[in-house]
């Protein structure tokens, strides 16, 4: 199948910084990513209509000032809400990684219970430690989740790098998120059991939630960074795996992007 017709918009600027590896993630799966400055979209030079997948990438938009994702989300909400709403309504895909997830939650694109887009129902709060943390974590996928991006994943490893990644919502919303299987990934121990303690659950997230999606499964937000594990040599254990002759050809994070590109190619043309 020709995946190159799958066009991916990677929004850049204002302190975002994972554009290059996110572009590499999509292009290594055959899609055609473009990195475009938010201003070029706000000024009408480029349009969301041209694309099938929208990526809100990692970084520090506006330095996380006023709370991670706040200023970036507000800029989008006040200046291009209609366009984004149309994009979502047309069945296209959205992924938000780290700062992108924070932005999605501030925009209310996930979990968007009852289809209430642009109404914030969950948040990423400061880590319980009060500190930024860079580490590798295991993630257990929820097999019952409608999430398009995590299909076929059981246990996966990715790096986390954030100071505001503690997933929280009020009890009522948490219950409904669980009930509808909107939790896509949970922090786990190396044996696949759900991690409740630091550092395996690095931020104190409720129910160890690392990633959620909307009810359609097409909008996906996650704190860990699949785009930072494209190469097998990113694996913190790769030298051990190499000495035991069990080093795979690909990094584990690629599957998230491959799932998205495959879905888009199949359903959006």
């Amino acid at each position, binding site marked *: 199948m020709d995946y190159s017709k799958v066009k991916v918009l990677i929004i*850049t*600027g*204002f*302190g975002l*910084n*994972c554009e*290059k*590896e996110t572009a*590499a*993630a999509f292009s290594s799966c055959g899609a055609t990513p473009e990195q475009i*400055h938010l*201003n*070029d979209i706000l*000024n009408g030079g480029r349009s969301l209509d041209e694309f099938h997948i929208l990526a809100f990438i990692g970084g*520090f938009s*506006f*330095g*996380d*000032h*006023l*709370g991670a994702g*706040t*200023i970036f989300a*507000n800029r989008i909400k*006040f*200046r291009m809400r209609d366009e984004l709403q149309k994009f979502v309504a047309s069945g296209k895909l959205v992924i938000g990684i780290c700062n992108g997830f924070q932005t999605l939650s*501030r925009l209310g694109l996930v979990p968007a219970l009852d289809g209430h887009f642009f109404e*914030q*129902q*969950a*948040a990423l*709060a*400061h880590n*319980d*430690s*009060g*500190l*930024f*943390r*860079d*580490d*590798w974590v295991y993630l257990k996928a929820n097999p019952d989740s409608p999430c398009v991006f995590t299909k076929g994943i059981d246990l996966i490893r990715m*790096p986390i*790098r954030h100071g505001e990644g503690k997933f*929280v919502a*009020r009890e009522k919303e948490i219950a409904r998120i669980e009930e509808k299987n909107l939790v896509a990934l949970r922090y786990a121990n190396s044996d696949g059991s759900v991690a409740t303690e630091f550092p395996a659950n690095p931020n104190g997230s409720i129910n160890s939630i690392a990633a959620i999606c909307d009810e359609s499964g097409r909008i996906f937000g996650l704190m860990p*960074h699949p*785009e*930072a594990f*494209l*190469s097998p*040599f990113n694996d*913190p*254990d*790769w*030298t*051990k795996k*190499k*000495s*035991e002759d069990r080093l795979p050809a690909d990094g584990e994070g690629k599957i998230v992007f491959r799932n998205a590109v495959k879905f888009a190619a199949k359903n959006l043309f």
Partner: protein
Amino acid sequence: MEYRIEISPLPEWKDARAEKIKNQIRNFLKLDIADVKTRDVYTMSAGISQAQAETAAREIANPVLQKGIVGETRFNESNACDWLVRVGFRQGVTDNVGRSAHEAIGDIVGRKLRDDEYVFSSVEYMLSDAWLDRKKVEHIAKDLLANELIENVSIFSKADLLKNPIPLELPIVRESGGGNVKEIDLEVSDGELLDISKKGILALTLEEMKAIQDYFRRAEGRENFKLGKKPTDVELEVLAQTWSEHCKHKIFSAEIDYEDEKGNIENIKSCFDTYIKKSTREISKKIDWLVSVFHDNAGVISFNDKLDLVYKVETHNSPSALDPYGGAMTGIVGVNRDPMGTGLGANLLINVWGYCLGSPFTDEKDVPEGLFHPRRLRDNIHRGVIDGGNQSGIPYGAGWEYFDERYLGKPLVYCGTVGLLPRKIGKNKGFEKSIKPGDLIVMSGGRIGKDGIHGATFSSEELHKDSPNQAVQIGDPITQKKMGDFIYEARDKSLYRFVTDNGAGGLSSSIGEMCTYSGGCRMDLKKAPLKYAGLDPWEILVSEAQERMSFAVPPENIEEFKKLAESRDVEVTVLGEFTDTGKFHMLYGEKTVALLDIEFMHDGLPQLKLKAKWVPPKHKDPAFKGRNIKDDVVSLLGRLNICSNEFKSRQYDHEVKGLSVIKPFAGICRDVTSDATVTMAEPLGKEGIILSYGILPRYSDIDTYHMMASIIDLCIRRIIAVGGKPEHIAGLDNFCWPDPVKSEKTPDGEYKLAQLVRANKALYDYTKAFGVPCISGKDSMKNDSTRGGRKISIPPTVLFSAISRMDDVSKAVTLDVKRPGDSVYVIGQTRKELGGSEYFAMMGAVGCHVPVVDASLAMVTYKAVSEITQNNLASSLHTPAIGGLAGAFAKKAMAGRLGLEIDIDKIPCESGMSPEEILFSESNSRFVMTIKPENEKSVEKILKGLSFAKIGFVISKQELILNSVVACSQASISMTEMIKSYKSTLDGI
């Protein structure tokens, strides 16, 4: 209208910031406080309505976590805290959060806020406990919550809060006027000349002041521009800045008479030329990968067909001593601009950091008056570089700390950045830059304020009580990131011919340098964008306000350049043009305020003439008998200079960009420091970059010659240890010295200068012998502090940093042992060299036999070891450093969480060494390797002729076993004990 927007955490969630403050009050101030709450406050003066302000409060607050209101949550008897501390910025201090809020509120109200509408950020801390009184609250406020140099503190008691609302604070700079120029009469006595230098913080010597006096006596053509014979303050400031130690490296360029221990006198024309440059020049004849060295902002070496590598390491010591957070942040964000301003602009790839500090456990009473306790200093330095690096999206590739009580007076803050420079940009070579007369002078980035005025001259002075507070700048990584993104777009469109950063000395320095390319410049300082009114022309010229770059833009490109900048929210301003008149010509409006001959600016500085005398210090090796190896190994692992600093390090991003291959921490639990790091140059790439460093200040106590030799060797063998090769390695030298100029304050100046000469001699000898050219370097020469009648000088400290190309990252090796049954080898000779070792330091001794380096033998070893890694024969590899073989065995075992059984008697060593000497000597050029038994033959064949031995096995038992039949000694140390000692010292600190 004036508003206060208050954002408070909802009570149902944990207030992580308040928890952190509570812990810090306990840990730093040793006070237990019952309750801490915090909230953010934005005060503003803007033309918006009450309803708009309310929308803003609602939209800024995260509705799940916070509540946002306009005004103040008033207290009553039941909810009032005992004390409220408000911390906001002083007037004119960079308020990054306030600036972001300014933009955010603009988005919400639907129009961009104007420059004369203001938003300021502040934090309110609400403290409650019965024992609190105003004095104790002041202590918490001033010694923890705020740095009064840059922040304002207001304290309110419960009674105040119940009675009156909290006054609205708007620290608007209300200056007017500015634009004043003074003439300075230099036809005065010598004493008065020195007075002018001192009062103006010019840091110029009498000889230099006289050279300036003489220049103005003979300067011609000034009357054509309505200038008199007397220099203006602008001219004097430009010269002081251009001639500062910081910019001109006067001590490294000085003529030195060096007397050795035998009384032989050698005349050295300049340490920089005679040793550093000469070695690189000689090596350059034999290699083809040096691209650009010493003259640009950073050194450049080739990487592959498409890319060159750029690397620079800087220090930012004095500002970090005064404002550790802002100073250190400026350190990292500032050094980022070096690669960004090298050639036509390099993309930023990897950061490095390292700090020399007093122990965080220093007794309060040993901290010099007016200086921060090293624990608070360390905390804020880390935080500054963490925020600066993380927000810029640059992973770190090497990070370290070194502790010694002699850094109490002045911390050393090293920050560095590796960049990737495209070999070709349009029709031009990436590393080449040029300027033609007629090109426009353009400045981009942040605006100019009084920040950082006199940074260059001030850093050339020792710290004293009245050090100026404007010497501190606060970096803003986001403004810089936006500017960087813009620069790369402009670069790829070939819109400019030249780019450089505005660092020390500000525009004076950048334009002063740039105009040598065209042969002159004419610039109107009145056009420079200011943060606030009231600046005089000299202040505009030398301000070190951050996040600025200077460009030479051909006039035909200026419209496109400006348009691109505008579309990226980056401010650019045309300030003038480059000329070929030979003059550095500054105007303020119509009026000429400086007219200097470029030649005099750059070559008029009289050379310093100094004396150095080497008298080898006399230390004795301590006698040690009856020590317990097990106890020694365990305590050694917990020593500050060996133990894990993972707690702080994990707060730095090292995975962003997705390029990390060998990470700063290795092993199955990712918790043991790697020898070096390996980073891919591009996502999914095969080629990599190896970074390593060496720093051993304690060796300087015996001989700086061997200190330098050892750190160069350490850097190279660390590269070999992760699978690198001894070819294609470049070095960076960063010297930090105590004042080495003999004076009343520094009676031992001749000795300290001799230490400098000896370090340089070794630098020449060993970089040449190893074929590792220095491509860039820096020096910081006045690292002394005199306070409360006590002088503290740092030990002579050199950081040597190395960078190397790796053809194939799949050949990389880590230090963790991989499986039980693997054989353990030691490669290299162990000698009785415990002088300056951590083992002796643990006994409170220095010792006399400092490790030396046999470069030619080392080179043969490195070639052999790299042949082993290239053939995938090593399961694990590590090179001993501080802590010797004992430390190395322990780290390898801990990293693999497997035991080792070692036969000390088999370790190749000098005759007559005791097990302790063998285990704790820090001899150079050695490795500890584990291999699969089936690879023994191939490995031994490669190592033939070298000093090596198979000395034991990896075992599944969780123990490090160290046996010597000869000495009837046996030690067995459990994994748990080792890990506890290694990890607990700085855990949570």
